């Protein structure tokens, strides 16, 4: 069973009288343990698709199954719980809490977890994650005392605290120099390989997408190519339309 399955997903924004279709019928499936790049020029609907895939937004029509669960009909609270449990986010601008230690930043998502983790266990888990991203000696540093690459690694550790099967990285290297970018991307690859975490890299840079084993191109609200794994043939455009 694929981790993510989209069927003819559409999203239309309504600005006053004008209807603005952003996604116009996306069908897509991503298997567990894949490392996928989601590419597209700005305005292609890439961000909207990511918001929907990340359960931050709801599609106008179509079906979205995540880990076998139908998402498109969930309330915002249900989606919040789902995000907490199944999805980790890494952002372009890191989005760390200012004047808060790396450890506390990593611990933050746990305060919304449904399971009650003891303080000791939570700290142990956070310390372990920070060690794994190579920041074992910077637990008490605040974001302002960390470099960009280090901040992004804290963000990755934070995304992993609830053991999500799916990790979204929205332009994770957009604010980093090329050497640090390389480090971060290598880390994603390692996580994907060693932990089997499914990672979706949203980017507009081909260099970044090159780290993924599969690239999905979006253009004008439609998938240009890469809708299915390379192993399986991509569904024909006509077939997509008829659905």
């Amino acid at each position, binding site marked *: 069973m694929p981790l993510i399955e989209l069927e003819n997903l559409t999203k239309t924004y309504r600005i006053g009288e004008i209807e603005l279709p952003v996604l116009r019928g996306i069908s897509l499936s991503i298997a567990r343990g894949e490392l996928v790049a989601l590419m597209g020029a700005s305005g292609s609907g890439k961000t909207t698709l990511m*918001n929907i895939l*990340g359960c*931050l*937004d709801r599609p106008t029509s179509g079906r979205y199954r995540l880990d076998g669960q139908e998402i498109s009909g969930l309330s*915002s*609270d249900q989606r*919040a*719980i*789902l*995000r*907490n*449990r199944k999805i*980790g*986010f890494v*952002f372009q601008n890191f*989005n760390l*809490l*200012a*004047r*808060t230690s790396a450890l*506390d930043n990593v*611990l*933050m*998502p*746990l*305060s*919304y*977890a*449904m399971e*009650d*983790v*003891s*303080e000791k266990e*939570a700290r142990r888990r956070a310390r372990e994650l920070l060690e794994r991203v190579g920041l074992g000696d910077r637990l008490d540093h605040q974001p302002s005392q960390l470099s960009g690459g280090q901040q992004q690694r804290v963000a990755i550790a*934070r*995304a992993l605290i*609830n053991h999500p099967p799916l990790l979204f990285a929205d332009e994770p290297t957009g604010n980093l120099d090329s050497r640090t970018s390389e480090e971060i991307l290598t880390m994603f690859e390692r996580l994907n390989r060693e932990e089997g975490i499914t990672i979706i890299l949203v980017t507009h840079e081909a260099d970044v997408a090159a780290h993924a084993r599969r690239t999905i191109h979006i253009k004008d609200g439609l998938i240009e190519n890469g809708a299915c794994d390379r192993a399986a043939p991509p569904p024909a455009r006509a077939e997509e339309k008829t659905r």
Partner: protein
Amino acid sequence: MSLLPGRVYRTIRAALHALRRNVMRSALTTLGIVIGVGAVIAMMEIGQGSSRAIRESIARSGADNLMIQPGAASSGGITFGGGSGMSLTPQDAEAILRECGSVRAVAPVVRTRTQVVYGNRNWIPVFIHGTVPAYLDVRGWRDLQEGEAFTDQEVRNASKVCLLGQTLVRELFDDQSPIGQEVRVKNVSFKVIGVLSRKGANMMGMDQDDILLAPWTTIKYRVSNTQYVQSGQNTGSDASSGGTMGRIYPGQTALYPERMASQLADTPMPVRFTNIDQIQVAARTPELVPEAIREIRLLLRDRHRLRADEPDDFSIRDMTEMTRQLKQTSDLMTRLLLIVAMISLVVGGVGIMNIMLVSVTERTREIGLRMAVGARARDILRQFLTEAVVLCMLGGAFGIAVGRGSSWMVRTALNWPTELSVAAIVASVAVSVSVGVIFGFYPAWKASRLDPIEALRYE
């Protein structure tokens, strides 16, 4: 589910952490609450202290006092006015003290009005009260200017000792110390053993210092009794009229046999049915006066064997006017304090709301992030509400310290009476938490309504 201990702990910790990220602003924000609560506590403590002082001074002037007088005697359709009956006994007084829970002290009083002579001076004091030592307690008059009060032993012995009021001392002794001197009351010599402190005029404008106090037995059996016929001013305090007593207390007719005049003069012994002119009673507090009246009335009706349809053979008077004024004063004070407290706390609350709104706007990205990692709307609401409440509670705690501190300063520096008010502290904590909830709700609600996508993109 939302009350898991780990999560509650983390919510409060997160709130404290968020407040610590901006210590100066949090401190200034909460200053309104600190000042508000501090002012309330200080004012309540000072107010209660002075209110207590006022209450005590009013109580001293007799707000807790009751006076029981016998009912009116009448003969052939002519009544002799209130207090002319002979229905009260010293035993009534003892029973009141023993059986009425809201009574603090009781003093039987025998009155007379006659001349007091010392050397070549004489004076007719307004009050000559024959009583017991508890009288001073009832009247709140325990601190004597000099000397000491007579004892219960001296009452039993009908000793010829007396206490003098200031006016009497001035008139008879020219303000010299009268201790140890002897004054004559209707040819009975009384040794002066004490001088009362100054009390001034009472509510009717009568000089309360124009007084002579002596054991009631002495006044009754040595002064009034012997001089009864000649004095004519006394309201019939004749103890030995067995016929009258027999009418009042049917069923107890076995009186002592009539004694001869010479016997009476030789041994002034208390007889069984001694009547007294009034009983003065002090309730435990001025507020308990109505309760005391009820208890005393039931007790005396029972003791006097009055049938249900018979009117009281006594009357009880209290200082209603005074009690009411006292109550009005303290009510007004409390209400005034409450209004001031309300205003200052509302001002503080507006400050909290203002800063919380700023904080929500400033932390829009953080809210978006929290939502993205799984915070539900209610989690965000709870978090910001907790922050506001924690802020207010810290303010309240500091306010209590400030309030107690300033009331202590007022007490030490200005020597004003203050009194610890637990109610004020409890109320302040409750009010600051409510202020936090009320004024923190709108910003928190606003935060919880943010769209995570918009919030994440907010610059």
